[in-house]
């Protein structure tokens, strides 16, 4: 059984160029990159994942001698669409965009194209409509993460059982990607797993804790598995489970995303089934390097994924937590 999926390729972006490791810009981009102006529309500044990704981005930029203007959307796509235009207005050599919505940035991307500014999407994908409007999409794909989570869950439960989904903020791009990917993959696998209920806990541990108490009351021991859009919320469920007087050993299968430290600890102890690691540092660095390549006129692939690793008990000792 293949628990470790080194993902370079997968379904949703099949139409695009599928392979490549995206590091080609590293060597020869460095000289001509000196002095480039890059505008980076980040998801947020105060966030467990975004902060280290941003930091890595900035660090890589310094190494290349690239100047970065960082705008933070604070998880508000509405702000982000405006910030994208601001970026275009500054006429930089390249733009890196962290989309929080699959659609909303398209008109901005059109303008960027008109202005001949290369755009690299970091971390989250956009709709098919946006294809051709950006130069490249680097980073993990939230949809892919959902897909991988579904595969792990499917295997862990032997293809049948009852689960709940603890999703992030309703309407948020990451939530949508990770949830849809999961649900669609279950269907594709012909899985008998039944999703009893989906709740939105806004990526908030306390919210997840409160909702999990109610979920445990409602479904209790009928639960075979829990899929949380991130490890923080999965942690909320774990706390609610022990709080209810139940044993860690009886814990339903838990699959989270992000590869947080405490998820790793849980996997080591055996009550946490799996998490999907994506490295924020790698995410940020890769996006910067890709945009540098694109801005210096090199050819870049339209899809440059960063590796996603499913961490289970088998490989937990070999992997590093993302944060």
């Amino acid at each position, binding site marked *: 059984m293949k628990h470790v999926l080194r993902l370079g390729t997968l379904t949703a972006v099949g139409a695009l160029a599928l392979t490549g490791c995206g590091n080609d810009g590293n060597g020869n981009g460095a000289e001509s990159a000196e002095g480039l102006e890059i505008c980076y529309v980040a998801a947020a*500044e105060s*966030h*467990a994942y975004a*902060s280290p990704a941003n930091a890595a981005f900035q660090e890589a930029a310094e190494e290349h001698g690239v100047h970065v203007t960082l705008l933070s959307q604070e998880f508000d796509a509405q702000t982000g669409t405006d910030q994208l235009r601001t970026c275009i207005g500054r006429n930089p050599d390249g733009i890196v965009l962290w989309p929080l919505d699959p659609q909303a940035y398209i008109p901005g991307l059109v303008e960027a194209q008109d202005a001949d500014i290369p755009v690299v999407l970091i971390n989250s994908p956009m709709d098919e409509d946006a294809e051709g409007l950006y130069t490249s999409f680097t980073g993990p794909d939230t949809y892919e993460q959902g897909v991988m989570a579904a595969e792990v869950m499917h295997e862990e439960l032997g293809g049948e059982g009852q689960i709940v989904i603890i999703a992030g903020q309703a309407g948020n791009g990451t939530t949508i990607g990770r949830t849809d990917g999961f649900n669609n993959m279950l269907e594709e696998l012909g899985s008998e797993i039944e999703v009893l209920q989906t709740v*939105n806990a806004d990526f908030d541990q306390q919210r997840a804790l409160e909702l999990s108490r*109610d979920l445990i009351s409602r479904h*209790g021991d009928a639960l075979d598995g829990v899929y949380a859009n991130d490890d923080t919320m999965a*942690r909320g469920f774990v706390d609610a489970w022990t*709080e209810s007087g139940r044993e860690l050993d009886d814990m339903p299968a838990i699959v989270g995303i992000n590869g947080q*430290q405490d998820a790793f600890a849980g996997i080591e102890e055996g009550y946490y089934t799996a998490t999907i690691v994506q490295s924020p540092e790698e995410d940020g660095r890769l996006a910067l390097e890709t945009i540098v390549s694109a801005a210096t006129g090199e050819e870049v692939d339209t899809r440059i994924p960063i590796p996603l690793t499913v961490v289970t008990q088998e490989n937990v000792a070999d992997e590093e937590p993302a944060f």
Partner: protein
Amino acid sequence: MTSAATLPPRVTEEKTANKILGWIALPVGILALLVIGSLLSEQFFTTRNLTNVLINMSIVGIIVVGMTFVFIVRGLADLSVPAMVAIGALLTLSLQPSLGSLVGALVGILAASAAGLINGLFIGYFRLNPVITTLATGTIVLGIAQAAVGGVIVYGDDPALQSFLTGRIILGIPTIVLIFLAVAVGGHLLLSQTIFGRWVYAAGSNPDATKASAVPLNFTKAAAFWMTATLSGFSGVLLALTLQTARPGIGTGYEFDAITAVVVGGVSLLGGFGNVPRAIGGLLLVTLLSNIMVLNGIPTASQGLVMGALIAGAVALDVYLRRRGGAA
């Protein structure tokens, strides 16, 4: 400057029926929810689930106690709650490695408390509009908190304290619920049994008469805001200790949750009326409702349809009764 036309209509008798309605609406609502909940879901009327309701209430409940004082003193509302929760939580965990959990917690509460003094000074003594003042101080305080921790998640490392807080120490009731109940009882006693509590009512009911009665009006108002900030900070500390993680957005929405509870409890935004049990009753009603909706699989994001209608309905009933000279 008072002229006849601006005076409220003189109320000469209390209508018993309305008065009774005003008092029983909340308990009846809670009772009705208990019945409905039991009918809709088997798991609802279990000790376990009802205990969960209590646990879920606890964190916001501590803030609700403070917000009740703000409402009764006619201070409108405190919108700086999320910021106070955040600094309480962030400081606790970021100081934990160097100073230990308890000292960290103390510093967290003190910091929120200090920020609350600023609220109190501006609103009580300078008489600035509370809504815009707390909006501004909240923005500033949260900004400083974010800048201080560089804007990331802070992890804690004190599972012992965590399990102590969430563990069921006495009669199967978790410590955190006991803490909340202690705060609620303390707040109730402060409001109903002490001189200060009486000042709060008087200041909200008629500030001029209160001032003319040699009551320190400015202090009373300032103290209500200081209390709310301190309790919010305390709530943030508990939140951080039970979750063992904290991030700047940790308190988002708590201000509106607290306002909702207080309003549904029938505490008047116009001041001078209400009490802590009522506000807690409002919180219980809201929490039960949310619990029932989750147990019955109603999508989380759509629950606001019911909540919004509940708030409007509760206040409309309150205003109606008040105009009839009932429960006021």
